[in-house]
């Protein structure tokens, strides 16, 4: 065991909460606890994970209701103070709805939920989540979402580019950014972005599902590992 405690937020309708819990706990052997959405304290955790799922059924818009959960006040102030936050899939949607990350996630352009392995090209290594990667390095990580089509207005996109905030782009296995490798219509093939202060990451692909070779790929483990190691 090393220092740093991970907290995984559980919204009603979260369904990848245990997957994240196990990836940090069983695979990375870190202290990890579940944080119920009605809590008003983060219980001293050093890294907050907003997991995948369908919080509140995603009935209004993905992530729109979860952002008003009591615990989100704590997550927002934790993030504003520089605390590390990872939003995966539905967690990414919650982060943009909460205004911790810019842009929005629209319905996939083919209107279908899509679950499959994709390749991600690392666009920046100067984040606590990608410090273990090399720029341009390609990792294999699965996606599973219906609303993953990243959208932002031109100014925001320019801001993301100027500030090196695009973390991952959907790519081919060889690292080429092509239309065919874009599974959901995201602008610029964007799969994940980081906040300007570089402490909040949102990504549609599921690194916690790619943390063990037995399950087909351990290409996502480096993201989780980089994050916890940056806590030391």
């Amino acid at each position: 065991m090393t220092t740093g405690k991970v907290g995984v937020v559980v919204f009603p309708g979260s369904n990848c909460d245990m997957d994240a819990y196990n990836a940090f706990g069983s695979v990375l052997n870190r202290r990890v606890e579940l944080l119920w959405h009605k809590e008003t304290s983060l219980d001293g955790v050093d890294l907050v994970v907003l997991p995948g799922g369908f919080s509140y059924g995603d009935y209004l818009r993905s992530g729109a209701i979860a952002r008003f959960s009591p615990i989100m006040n704590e997550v927002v102030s934790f993030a504003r103070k520089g605390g590390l936050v990872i939003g995966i899939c539905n967690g990414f949607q919650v982060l943009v709805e909460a205004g911790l990350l810019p842009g929005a996630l629209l319905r996939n352009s083919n209107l279908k939920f899509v679950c499959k392995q994709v390749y991600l090209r690392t666009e920046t290594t100067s984040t606590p989540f990608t410090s273990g990667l090399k720029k341009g390095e390609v990792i294999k990580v699965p996606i599973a979402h219906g609303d993953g089509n990243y959208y932002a207005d031109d100014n925001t996109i320019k801001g993301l580019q100027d500030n090196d905030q695009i973390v991952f782009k959907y790519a081919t296995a060889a690292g080429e950014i092509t239309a065919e490798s874009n599974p959901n219509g995201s602008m610029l093939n964007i799969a994940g972005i980081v906040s300007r202060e570089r402490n909040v990451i949102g990504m549609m692909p599921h690194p916690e599902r790619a943390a063990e070779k037995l399950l087909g790929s351990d290409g996502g483990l480096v993201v989780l590992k980089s994050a916890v190691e940056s806590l030391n």
Partner: protein
Amino acid sequence: MYKARIEVTLKKKILDPQGKAIESSLRNLGFLKLGGVRTGKNIDMSVNESNIDAAIALVTSACAKLLANPVTEDYECEIFDEAGKQVAQFSSAQGGASKVAAK
């Protein structure tokens, strides 16, 4: 007591794949004179306020805070009195908070 009907749509400049799919299905079915399909959702609710200005303020705030995502969505809102008569109409395009058709 009022009733509000809010219609939330994707901003015009954003692609509406659902609308596009419907349009192409319509075309396949021979509805060649129909086009420009856009989809959206209706949200109906009762507004427990005694005067119209307060009702407008309350609904506007709900739209801005929760019901529509300002990054991607526009909304139009109608408010009806208990007799079912429309008493106000406003939209995000007009800045959201301004009452334009109160009678």
